[in-house]
């Protein structure tokens, strides 16, 4: 079971994880503003995650931890 967790307050909302995700299951949370004032990234459908870690690979801020 894949699990992706976000250290949300580190996120700068650049969206590089969103465009890297091959399953299209990440988004920037337009309804959330984090400590830094950004819309942070979040998972929309954990079930579909394959734990490829492409999101974490492209994240410049070490926001994402991926577990399987």
């Amino acid at each position, binding site marked *: 079971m894949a699990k992706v967790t976000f250290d949300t307050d580190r996120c700068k*909302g*650049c969206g*590089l994880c969103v465009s890297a995700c091959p399953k299209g299951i990440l988004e920037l949370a337009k309804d959330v503003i984090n400590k830094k004032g950004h819309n942070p990234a979040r998972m929309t459908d954990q079930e579909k995650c394959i*734990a490829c870690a492409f999101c974490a*690979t492209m994240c*410049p801020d*070490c926001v994402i931890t*991926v*577990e*399987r």
Partner: protein
Amino acid sequence: MIVFEKPKSLTDAELHYCPGCTHGIIHRLVAEAIDTLGIEGRTIGIAPVGCAVMAYNYFACDMVEAAHGRAPAVATGIKRSLPENIVFTYQGDGDLASIGMAETVHAATRNENITVIFVNNAIYGMTGGQMAPTSLPGQITQTSPYGRDVKTAGYPVKVAELLSALDGPEFIARVAVNNVKNVKNAKKIIQKAFENQIEGKGFSLVEVISACPTNWGMTPQNALKWIDEKMIPYYPLGIFKDKSEGKEAGER
């Protein structure tokens, strides 16, 4: 099982870089190499002047902040003093290829046993987007508002090609961090640049093509595309020199 997490040799400090700036990816790749090789306790890093000036807060190993462009000289002093330690510099294009060109070339030609991470984003970031020695012909910056005119501003410096023409350096490569495949390759190459030092092979420089969405005036996504479309055609990726593998200048 953890597939991916923040490397241990990065501190918990939040990076000050702009959203989508790929300095953060490169920091992580350096830290991953340090973790993988188990060398954090004996590594000393040198921060530059430029956007990465505060890298000393991000790497958990001992750190020194150098004057603009002088990191290879500072690294030389440290390495000669403590040859058993692992010494790396982390420098941008203005730092390494403009003001610090002499220090770069001479550390390379001495085959100084250090690792140099050279971040090329074709612009001066910290000062707000001026023309860099690596800005592309025609590239619009604050100090080339009509585009870099090679007749008056000269041509970009191709650092990897230039240094690989020297007999001295052990290893010269150019990588990019604009997509997953390139990041994974960059990780391998950066690790090799540290392994070379551990094995006493000598000067190993990795030029990393990096994005500056803020000063390029692009979204982070478009900045990564611009690397593919404009940067990589001018700055081809690959291993330019690998003396131990018998690969000399000109072969790629």
